Structure formats: structure tokens, C-alpha cells
């Protein structure tokens, strides 16, 4: 029997890691995988093993000089000169920094993640799968010439560029990571066939600082980049209201052939890097809405990837297990299995939650709630008014 949904995963993706102290910790993938398996949500039929993206495929969005630099960095060689001359340094390529330290075989590990998202796109386009999820994907900050914000190769960008070249399809990209999806936005900023939509905390304080509503695309792509910068401390209700107001209008207006969603879950109240105040209720709602739109608008073609998520113990495993359950049309219980809790609690620095959905009252009330909601509504209206789909 052919399964309608696939998940791209192998232990090899865990080699994309920057060291013990770094917040981008692949342990979160292992914990998520373990939780999915504990619930019996993954069978052999679901699993596809990723292949590395070729250099030619990476070069769809990355410069050859940058790919060369990543290869050298991962194999212990000296840095090349940056394009345009100057001192050979890693920093010119965004490598060897606090955010993106060099690690052995970083090219191979990063190419495998890009290949995973490519495979997901390929399986969906070939009709092998209706929906596909690359758990390790979602490296939305990587730029054409440099690494940025924990991201080496932009797996999403590679997949979108490949889809454009191979199938000439219209792609809608939905990014709900707490950080602006800048890398993907800039790669397709002038392309009217790629609609990039990003919901994120405002760049007032948060990295990367971009994602203002005035960033709308350029040239023929004007109107095809849409940003919804959320006020710090935004909670579920306001965020969900915005998603429901914006996404159906945009997706039905654009009529994509395929949807790619980035599912960073770092907007959660517990996330240590951001200042948003969502609960896991949001991370059940997002895939539900995207799933529904994919069936309504583009024959179900939907590729999901992971992304940010830095409370690796309490948030990521729950959020992405719920995403996979939605994507694979399976149901999950309200409670986290005790066997999983027993395995991971001894390692965790905080008590692990026992329910998938954070019960009401788990987090303190946000004092400026009304003001935050009002500001978000103004942002929503102003941002939508600048799109070609607003009527």
C-alpha cells in the first residue's frame, strides 16, 4: 500500500552540529524521532533516506566560491580569498563565527540536509508522496555567498530553485519560524513565481533584523514577498488570528502548484533565543491550516521542513511530532508517552511537559496583551494591503 506521506530522515543528519555549547543541537532531532516512534507514528513505508545534494544543485542558489569555502573549512584547509579580492578569511563567508563555527565535514553534512529537502520536493512532484517532511531541513538564513544564523546551505532555496528549473511551478513558501526567513526571501526577491511569506518577531531586537512590511519584493517580483513582523510577547490567539486572516487570502490568490512550509518552533514562550509567547497550541494550528490550504489549492502538494527551536527538551519534540501527525493524517494522544519521558527526563535540565498542548495557565499572562494584539492587527492590514491579492 502506498503511503500518502513520507518523512526524510537518517541518523546521518545528526552530523550537522556546531559543538556541545551551541544552541543548534541535533539532539532535538533524535528526541523528536524517538517520540514519533514511541507513538508508532513512523513505519518503514514512511521513511526515505536523504541523499546529499550535488554541487551543481547547491550552485542553483549558492556561489561556487562559497561552496568551495565550505568544503575547505570542513576539510581542515586554509580559507580562500573572498570574491573581489582581499585577505583570505573565513569571516567573509560567514564561517568560523560564534553562530556558524567550522566543524569537520561540514560540507557533506550540510549538503545532506539540502538533499533531504530536494528529495522531499522531488517525491511530491513525482506523485510518490502527497506530503513530505524533512525533519532536519529549514535552514532559511543561509545567503548566496555566506552562512548566517546557524545555516550553511539554504536547503529550502535549493529545493525551490530546483522546482522552478525542473518543473517551472509556482511555489508558495510559508515561514513561521520566530526569526525572519531572510535567506529564502532574498534568493527569490525578484521572482513573481515564488511567493515568500514570513511570520516572525519584529527585527527591533531579534536577529536578523529584517522582515519589515515594506520588504515586498523587487522588479517583477514586487508584491511577492510578504512579511508579518509580530510584536515581542505575541501570544497564540493573536498569532493564530493573523495566520487565518492572511494565509487563505494569500495562498488562494497566488494559486501555487506546491507549498513549502518552514516550521521553526522558536516562537514558543520557553524558547531562550526569542521574545515571543506562543504555546504548543500554535504548533498544532499552523500545520492544520497549511495542510488544509494545500488540499484546497494545490492538490495536496506540500513539503514541510523543520527550522529553529532552541528549547530542545520541552518544545521541539512535541511541536514536530504534532506536525508529522498532521502531515501523515494520524492522530496522537493528549499525553506524552511515559516511556519517552522516562528515557529523556533524566537528561533534561527542566521538568518535561506531560501534555502535547500546554494547558491554559502554564505561562504568566502578558501585561500588554491588548496593545500587542492591536499593533499586530495594524501590521496585518498594512502588510496585506500591499500585496496583489488584497481585495
Amino acid at each position, binding site marked *: 500500500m502506498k503511503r500518502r506521506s513520507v518523512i526524510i530522515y537518517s541518523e546521518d543528519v545528526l552530523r550537522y552540529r556546531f559543538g556541545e555549547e551551541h544552541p543548534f543541537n541535533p539532539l532535538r532531532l533524535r528526541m523528536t524521532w524517538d517520540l514519533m516512534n514511541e507513538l508508532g507514528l513512523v513505519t518503514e513505508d514512511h521513511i526515505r533516506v536523504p541523499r546529499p545534494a550535488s554541487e551543481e544543485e547547491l550552485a542553483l542558489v549558492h556561489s561556487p566560491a562559497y561552496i568551495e569555502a565550505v568544503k575547505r573549512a570542513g576539510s581542515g584547509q586554509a580559507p580562500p580569498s573572498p570574491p573581489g579580492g582581499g585577505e583570505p578569511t573565513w569571516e567573509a563567508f560567514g564561517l568560523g563565527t560564534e553562530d556558524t563555527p567550522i566543524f569537520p565535514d561540514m560540507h557533506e553534512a550540510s549538503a545532506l540536509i539540502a538533499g533531504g529537502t530536494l528529495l522531499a520536493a522531488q517525491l511530491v512532484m513525482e506523485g510518490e508522496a502527497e506530503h513530505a517532511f524533512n525533519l532536519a531541513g529549514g535552514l532559511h538564513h543561509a545567503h548566496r555567498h555566506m552562512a548566517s544564523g546557524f545555516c550553511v546551505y539554504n536547503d529550502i532555496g535549493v529545493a525551490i530553485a530546483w522546482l522552478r528549473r525542473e518543473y517551472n511551478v509556482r511555489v508558495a513558501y510559508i515561514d513561521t519560524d520566530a*526569526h525572519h526567513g531572510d535567506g529564502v526571501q532574498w534568493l527569490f526577491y525578484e521572482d513573481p513565481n515564488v511567493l515568500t511569506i514570513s511570520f516572525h518577531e519584529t527585527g527591533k531586537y531579534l536577529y536578523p533584523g529584517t522582515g519589515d512590511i515594506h520588504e515586498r519584493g523587487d522588479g517583477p517580483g514586487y508584491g511577492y514577498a510578504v512579511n508579518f513582523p509580530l510584536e515581542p510577547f505575541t501570544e497564540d490567539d493573536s498569532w493564530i488570528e493573523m495566520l487565518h486572516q492572511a494565509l487563505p487570502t494569500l495562498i488562494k490568490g497566488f494559486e501555487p502548484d506546491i507549498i513549502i512550509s518552514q516550521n521553526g518552533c522558536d516562537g514558543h514562550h520557553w524558547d531562550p533565543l526569542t521574545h515571543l509567547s506562543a504555546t504548543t497550541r500554535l504548533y498544532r494550528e499552523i500545520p492544520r491550516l497549511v495542510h488544509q490550504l494545500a488540499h484546497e489549492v494545490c492538490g495536496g502538494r506540500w513539503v514541510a521542513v523543520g527550522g529553529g527551536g532552541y528549547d530542545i527538551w520541552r518544545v521541539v519534540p512535541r511541536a514536530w511530532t504534532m506536525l508529522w501527525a498532521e502531515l501523515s493524517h494520524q492522530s496522537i494522544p493528549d499525553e506524552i508517552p511515559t516511556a519517552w519521558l522516562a528515557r529523556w527526563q533524566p537528561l533534561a535540565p527542566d521538568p518535561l511537559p506531560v501534555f502535547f498542548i500546554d494547558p491554559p495557565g502554564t505561562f504568566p499572562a502578558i501585561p500588554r496583551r491588548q496593545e500587542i494584539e492591536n499593533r499586530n492587527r495594524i501590521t496585518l492590514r498594512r502588510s496585506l494591503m500591499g500585496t496583489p491579492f488584497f481585495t
Partner: protein
Amino acid sequence: MLVEQIMTRDVVTVNPHTPLIEALQLSRARRIRHFPVMQGQELVGIVSDRDMRDICPSILDPNWESAVRSLHIRDCMKRDVITVHPWDFIEDAAAEMFRQRVSCLPVVQDGKLVGILTERDILHTLIDMMGVLAPSSRIEVELPNRPGGLADVADILRARKVNACSVLVFPGDTPQTRRLVLRVQTMDPRHIIDDITAAGYRVIGPLRTGGRAG
């Protein structure tokens, strides 16, 4: 930064004998509010769209057209022009515009007009300075108004090997303090914030939610 780094070099000028109607049309077509007035190579005046409109007769006047056609730039130009030199500092030029209540300054070097500096050029520079020049996080710190604070923060950035892509110092809420706004090229500024706090300075933003420091 110097005036010559941000001024507009391609200056549209008029002369005292330019018919008013021609200058008005030029102003509308090129969206220009100020014309330096040249007599040969010499700057002899400046005229704004408001100067020009002020001397126009009312459009209700039946003789409007012939009245307008009889007017020239010499009839409305200001002869007392405030200019700057291309090597002046931008902040001095901005202060001059603010004090004199003018919204543009012709840039003159060796008696020749080499450019023009407008409010828009200044605003654009300000936006660039305060804007996001590279992917970065913002940290705002209150510093005491005495030597050493900025150096302490800079030392912390160096120790953490994090590059700052913009640094601004604003007056504080009281005369004893100043407000330092940094944009640092890292997605994870937690350690820097902790270090700044540990060094005894108050971090005004970002405020923390429930997240635990790593």
C-alpha cells in the same frame, strides 16, 4: 562622513532669466523642490518651489496666463545663499540646515557648484546608520556618562568574537546616563547580554521571556 559622500552630484539648475513657467514644469517633472540659480559658472541664488508658487497670480485671475508668462526666476529667487563645502562634516551641514531653517544646501568648492545636499540625503544617511546593514541582533544598554563604559562593552564583544555592525550612542533619560544601541552579528546574543549585565551595566532591551540562559 563628509558632505561629498552623500550629496547629489547631478544638479539641475536654472538661471535668472529662466521663465518661471519652465522652472515650475521642471520642478514637477523631475520632482525637485530647489534649484540653484547660476549666472554662467557663478552661483547667484536659490529658488524653491514655494518661492515660485508664491509669486504666481491666482488661477482665478483672467489674465493668469499672460501674468505668469511675464515672470522669471530673477523675480522670486533668494540671493543670500547658504552653502557648504564638500569636505564639511555631514553633522555640521545638518546642524546648519536645522539652525537656518533651510531644507537644502548647495555644495560649493573653489567658487564652483559641485553638488547639492537636501533633507532627504540627510534622512537617508540617518536611516542607513540606524538601519539593519547585516543580519544582526539589537542590544540596548544604559551606560553611566563617564569614561570606560563603551570600552567595557567593546571588550566583551571582542572576547566573544562577535562583530558589531552598528554602534549608536544616544543621550540617556538623565544627564548621568547615555543609551548605547548595538547591532551585533549573532543570532544568539544571550552570552553578550549576560556579560554586559555581569559587568554592572543595565540592559534595557531585549527583555527576556521564560527562556533559560544556555
